[in-house]
Each structure stands twice: as C-alpha cells, then as structure tokens.
C-alpha cells in the first residue's frame, strides 16, 4: 500500500553493500582479520553481492514505477 517496498530494500542493500565493499577494500590483505574466514575476504564478497542485489531491486522498482505512469 502506498510505497513500493522494492525501493527501500534495494536502497538499503545498496548502501550496506557500499559500506562493506569499502571496508573490504581497505582491509584487503589483512591476514589477521580474515584468518577466521579461512583467508577469504568475506566482506568484499558479501558487500559485492549486496551491491548487485540492491541494484537489481532498485531496477525492478524503477521498472514498476515506469509501468504505472503512462
């Protein structure tokens, strides 16, 4: 009702994705930090995934909006 929930969802994951990707980039190579995640920079992967998911949701939301306005 009223709002298209795809938009806030997309926006939130996009923002979280930005934060985590940024953090992942600045801590890249920090073996102490990533020793517990089996040496994988899980922040970068997770952040990247969220960015993509956020963009998909934002795109779907934009598409719905376009379909509504003639």
């Amino acid at each position, binding site marked *: 009702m009223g709002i298209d929930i795809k938009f806030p969802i997309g926006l*939130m994951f996009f923002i*979280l994705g930005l934060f*985590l990707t940024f*953090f992942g980039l600045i801590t890249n190579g920090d073996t102490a930090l990533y020793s517990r995640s*089996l040496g994988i920079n899980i922040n970068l992967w*997770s952040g990247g995934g969220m960015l993509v998911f956020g963009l998909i949701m934002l795109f779907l939301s934009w598409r719905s909006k376009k379909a509504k306005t003639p």
Partner: protein
Amino acid sequence: MIETGFALSWIDYTIMIVYFVFVLGIGWALKRYMKDANAFLEAGRSMPAWVAGLAFISTNLGALEVMGMAGSGAKYGMLTTHFYWVGAIPAMVFLALFMMPFYYGSKARSVPEYLKLRFDEKTRGLNAILFAVMTILASGISMYALAILMEKVLGWNFHLSLVLSAAIVLGYTYLGGLSSAIYNEVLQFFIIVIGLLPIVILSLQDLGGWDGMKDQLAPIVTAKGYAADTWTTTWKYTGSAAANPLGVEWYGIAAGLGFVLSFGYWCTNFLIVQRAMSAKSSTAARNTPLIGALPKMFIPFLIIVPGIAALVLLNKQGSGFTLPEISPGHYNYDYTIIALLKQYLPAGVLGLGITALLASFMSGMAGNVSAFNTVWTYDIYQSYIRPVTADKASDDKHYLFVGRMATIFGVIVSIAAAYLASLFGNIMDFLQTIFSMINAPLFAVIFLGMFWKRTTGHAAFTGLLAGFTVALLHHGLTVPEGAATLVKGGWICNLHTYPVEMAQNFWTAIIAFSTSAIITVGLSLITKQKKTDEDLKGLVYSLTPKHVETDIPWYERSSTLAILVLAIGTILTILFW
C-alpha cells in the same frame, strides 16, 4: 559473560544503524496512508502476493526459531527438516487451495471473525481471548530472549536492550500498522538470508563441502549409537524410535507433525493467516502461502546445515569451536548460531549477522503486536466494548485510534510479559505446549466448519473447549523420559512415560485434534443449525461457487504454483531420504 561474547567495531555498528534507520523510515513513509482502521489493521487488503508470501514465512522465522533450529540441526541432523518439509508444505498447500478461499472470501478481518460468521459469538470470543493472551506472551518472550542474548553476547544492559527494542518496534508499528510490520518482515527475510549465508558457505568450506562433512560426521554419529548417515538422512531411520535421535517413528512424524501440529499451526494461527488475508485479491491470497512455501523449503540449508556443521566442529580437535555447557558434556545448543558467527565472521559481516538476528527478534515481536491489535480492536473491543454506530466516518476514526492505542498497550504488556519470562525459565516451552493444545482443536473445528455445513456453533464451542481440556489432561498425566520439571508434564500423576518430549507433543496434539473433531461432529448432529444456507454462502465449501482459473495466465494460477511446490518438496525428500 560466556565465552561466546564478542566485541563489535565501527563497521558492525554502522550496519546495525543503517538497518534500523530503514526500519523506522518505512514506518514513517507509511504514516500518511494510515487513514482508517482498515488501512492500519488490515494493510488495506492491498499487498502484492510476493510481499504477503515473503512476510508469511518471515513471521515464522523468529530468532527463537532460527537459533532453535540450528541447535536442533546439531542435535538431530537433517531429521530437523521434518519441521520444514513434511511438517509445513502439505499444510501450506492445503491452506492456500482449500482454506484461503473461505478466510479471504468471507471478508472476515481475522480468524476469530471467521468463527463468528461461520458459528457464533461465543466461539469467536473464546478464540479471540485465548489468542490475544497467547500472542502477547509470545511477543514478551521474544523481547526477553533478545535482551538476554544482547546482554550475554554483546555485554549490553538487559533493561536498556529491552526498552530500546520495544521502542523501535512500537515506533514502526504505531506509525504504519500492519503494512509496516509486513514490509519490514520482507526486509527481514532478505537480511536473514544475506546475514546468515556467510556462515553456511564458510562452515561447509571449512569441512570440505557436504561430502567432507558427511565423512567427519560418521565417527561422531556412530559413537552416539546410530548408523553413520543418520544425521544426513530424513526418513531412512524412522522405522523405529531407537534408530533416530528424534525418538519418533515415521507414523508419529506423519500424523503428529505432518498433519495435526502443522495444519494446526499454519492453517489457524492468525499471526500467519493475517499476512495472507492482507493480500490484494483472492488469487493473491491463495498464492501467498504457496509463494512462501518456495523459500521455506530451502531455509533448512541456511539454518540446519550450519547446525550439523557445528556438531562436527565441536568434536574436531583444534577447531577452536566451543559451546557453553549446561553440565559436563551437555552443551547448550541454543548458542550454535552465535558460536558459528564468532567462529567464522570478521568485523563487517559479523555486524551483518548480528543485525540479522536482531531483525528476526524484532519482527517476531512486531508480528505478534500487529496480530494482537487486529484481534483486540475488531474481535474484543468492537464486539464487546463499543460496537459500530450509524456514523461510519466517526467510527473509522475511532477504531483507528483504538488500533493505535492497542499498539501501545500491546507493547507495554509485552514488556511486562518479558519480565515475567525472566522469572520462569521454562516459559517458552510452556507457551509452545499451550499453543499446540489450542491450535489442534481449532484446526479440527475450522476444518469441519469449512467442509461440513451441518457443523453448529454450540458444537464448535464445546469442541474447542473439550479438545483443549483433554490435551491439558493428557499433558498432566504423562511425562517425557528424564523430565526435570512439572512444566514438562505429569503434574496430575504419571500414567505413561514417553521416550522423548517430541513424542509427547505429537500425541498431545493428536489427542486434542481427535477429541475436538469427535465432539464437534457428535454435537453438531444433535444441536440445531442456526445458520441458513444463505448465511453460510462463501463460508462453506458446498455453498460457495467454485473458483475459476481459466482467465488467469498459467503461471499465476494457484494450481500451477501448488504443483510446483509439491514437486520440489518431493524431490528434496527423495534426495535426502
């Protein structure tokens, strides 16, 4: 503080804050659409099927469920999927195809209201009051569990956590009502999946994939006295109670869990059904449980599999993985998810994981409060305290006001219930037990009401009471083996001992259902049916025009979705037999 405590860094707090800003923001954005009680308490019946569908299962993904199921994964292995496959899918499909037409088509605004339309006022009243009390208790227990967890794991002050979480929930439900609760449940669904996915991937990677985990499970499981693959199969070892750690046979699972407990929960619990009732059309309402069933079937891989991995890690030398012990050798498996978060997640995704848990706690609370609001306003207040008047406009405003006040009232009583929970350690188990004693008879009565027009109000009311009473008696006369407290049963005397608590639960539900069904049928035959066929049109199968699907494209039809859901469920069952 237990050994699983951890310290968070700025990135973790940032993630949490972003999440809560959006949660409250959604509530704020919805504020201007809350013009009347219908908008506030029923989401204006305008939710798209995918939103209602995700909210439908998200409501069920409370933190207690998430943490509990992960713990069960460690304790029972893939057998835990019975709660997600046979113990949910048939019920959800049945609800979608055979019950939603009546719930939605009758224009009832709640499950108790359906009871009033179909039966009579006293049946509605009984259900409304029981439900209102139970749902607020459930909300309080969620609140309590959240505050305790935050205290133990993050070192936050218990009272502050309690009040702060209550304030956030109050904030977004007061502003946006049911719509706010539902939209946030959809948000919560995504954050839970994204927040917990890292530990699934990392734990499996650490153990050498699914096969590597299976190999390492074999010695651990055989040491417990079971066949090597018991933790990765679901039906194979249910021929006898001793062959599997759940301690039940296949017919107990099928009848107790697959039928009575699951149908009792999914088909009658207003917290769940409310999400389907908020859908924007009859087709959307039908599709809601089916759309929800699709991700539901895959949630075991998100929650149960890491639990199984945890068991391996616990027994693996040098893994560094531990769980708090209740007594020497007896671990507290409730902390499985927390321990996994600590084991694998560095700062950053750790904050994401904690946010996922916080999100699921709060949405449990918000869901309960939103269900309470509706039942209070329509079924208790509007029925017994201040009925509708001729002035519709002022009525609308009044009931909206009442709905908002009920939100505040509901949150305050939840806080009180949370403190009550802190006094009684076993209150959650107790509540689960009571819920199933109420749900099983309720399902019998509603089922009979929907499919047999002869069912009468007197019979339904008595059936509900009788089912609940007999279930209570059964609980008082039997104990599960090794039960330490009276909350587990046997408080009248011990006539029978069950090998495990789950067996006792199954049988309590089966007996409650059967008693209720027999009494309701019996009394219906000897009491007068006060409703005419005209009254019952749209409420009973035989008096409702059949749903036509030929004008809907095949991919939007409920029958197509239902076949898809059942097909996937069958494939999964075969794969993990």
